[in-house]
């Protein structure tokens, strides 16, 4: 018997409220459909009425978690358009802010994933370790989120020498914590049984759906804009791209956990360089936007974030096109969810890390053929029960 299960439009895992329709036969998902647009704010249209400087503040508010990724992509597009150079110190500062953001975003994801499989301990733990990063942001940028650091041709605010020890200290504390989390997740047989082989996205599908970021790298697609088209200071520091072959939720978790180590490495090197470079040289102004167009893209925590800007030589952009990574990752559910059981859907959805936005709220829709109703909490409960079952079977 086929049952249709609506999820959304308001539910806790998605950056924007989205509406999923799952069609299940027994326990198995046989079809699904996604409807987005609940959070459509017309940002690209608003951007046409803002000056180039103001656009940065606007795109910062596309997504609160990627609030450095979008500005970086946007200033890269503007610099591509104007052919501008950025001072070296500003490059390092951009890298530091972007990597700190990646750390906090990956930790946030890990906590939520823990919650969805019923390990609330992980949720609370991880969010505890995330807190010092936000404090660090407050110290160096003045705000916990929405850092307002980027400006075309450089950055708004310098990171002063007196703040560098604080950054080092947080990194020194975070590294063992991340190590502990990595071990806790990879060595735990329950975790292995719960996450391995769930929601596999094959390499072919990853290429076909044009997925990005950790979702692609977990499926063996070796792409990372930080390496492929270096921006900020990524070509000046040592680091490597993490690629896994599994394509399942475990592989996605591994990619993110290992990327945290790389981020820590990058930040440490950037901090060392900042110590040597003279303070203050952080901005080279762009006097005039020429007529033309520019493309900027960068690696956000969730994947490549792309901005396209068209200019007619005036103060306002003619067109700003924004493509966030989840936009490409989301349709791939179709490939990874179909054939899985319904208790895994919450987890697979979590796997691509659509940024967290809206706490539980369900559409109460009755299906004519079957009066059974699930809501998002039910899905999470199903997922947690499955973990419990596996735990009992393994005798732990």
């Amino acid at each position, binding site marked *: 018997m086929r049952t249709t299960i609506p999820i959304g*439009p*308001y539910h806790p895992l998605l*950056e924007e*409220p989205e509406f999923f329709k799952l069609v299940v036969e027994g326990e198995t998902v046989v079809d699904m459909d996604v409807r987005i*647009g*609940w*959070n*459509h*704010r*017309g*940002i690209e*249209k*608003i951007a046409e*009425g803002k000056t180039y400087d103001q656009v940065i*503040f*606007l795109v910062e*508010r*596309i*997504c*609160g*978690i990627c*609030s450095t990724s979008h500005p970086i992509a946007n200033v890269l597009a503007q610099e591509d358009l104007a052919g501008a150079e950025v001072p070296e110190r500003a490059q390092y500062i951009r890298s530091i802010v972007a990597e700190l953001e990646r750390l906090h975003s990956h930790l*946030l994801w890990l*906590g939520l994933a823990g919650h969805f499989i019923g390990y609330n301990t992980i*949720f*609370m733990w991880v*969010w*505890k370790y995330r*807190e010092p990063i*936000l404090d660090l942001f407050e110290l160096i940028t003045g705000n*916990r*989120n*929405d850092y307002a650091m980027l400006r075309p041709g450089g950055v708004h605010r310098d990171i002063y020498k007196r703040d560098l020890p604080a950054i080092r200290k947080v990194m020194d504390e975070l590294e063992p914590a991340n190590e502990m989390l990595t071990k806790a997740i990879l060595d735990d047989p329950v975790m292995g049984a719960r996450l391995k082989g769930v929601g596999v996205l094959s390499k072919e599908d990853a290429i076909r759906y044009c997925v990005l970021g950790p979702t692609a790298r977990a499926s063996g697609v070796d792409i990372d804009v930080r390496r492929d088209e270096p921006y900020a200071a990524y070509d000046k520091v040592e680091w490597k791209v993490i690629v896994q072959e599994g394509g399942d939720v475990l592989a996605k978790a591994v990619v993110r956990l290992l990327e945290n180590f790389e981020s820590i490495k990058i930040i440490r090197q950037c901090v060392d360089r900042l110590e040597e470079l003279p303070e203050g040289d952080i901005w080279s102004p762009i006097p005039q936007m020429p007529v033309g167009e520019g493309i900027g893209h960068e690696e956000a925590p969730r994947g490549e974030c792309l901005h396209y800007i068209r200019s007619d030589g005036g103060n306002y952009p003619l067109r700003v096109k924004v493509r966030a990574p989840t936009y490409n990752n989301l349709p791939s559910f179709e490939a990874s969810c179909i054939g899985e059981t319904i208790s895994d859907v919450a987890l697979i959805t979590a796997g691509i890390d659509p*940024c*967290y*936005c*809206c*706490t*539980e*709220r369900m559409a109460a829709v009755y299906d004519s053929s079957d009066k059974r109703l699930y*809501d*998002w*909490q039910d899905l999470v409960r199903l997922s947690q029960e499955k973990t419990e079952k596996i735990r009992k079977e393994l005798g732990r």
Partner: protein
Amino acid sequence: MGLKSWSLKRSPWIFHVCTGSCNNCDIELLDCLTPKFDVERFGILLVGSIRHADALIVTGAVTRQAAPKLKYLWEQMPKPGLVIALGACGCSGGIFRDSYNIIGPVDRIIPVDVYVPGCPPKPEAIISGIVKGLAKL
């Protein structure tokens, strides 16, 4: 003070709805529940249904799609109850005010008791907002 308001003040349960925000307020709200701030100590709990909630926290500048749903939620909320508009967008529409798809801010759709400004408000500000709202009852 009636019995209802008295009991409301003890451990307010909160329902959260995002009507087109950028996530920041939502994350900061969730942050209140995690070890550093841990508002569960005071009985403040995030619940999954508006029918169980004493306070409705609204983030975002209310998109065209979200407005009827927000109204519907408010109608279902047990009264008396608090409505808290969180963040610059919820209070005034913020940077998205002029968009074609925004019909907010929140107080254009439903009555609001407490405004917590900020982009995003810090967890301390959110807690303070809830407390002020409770004092108003």
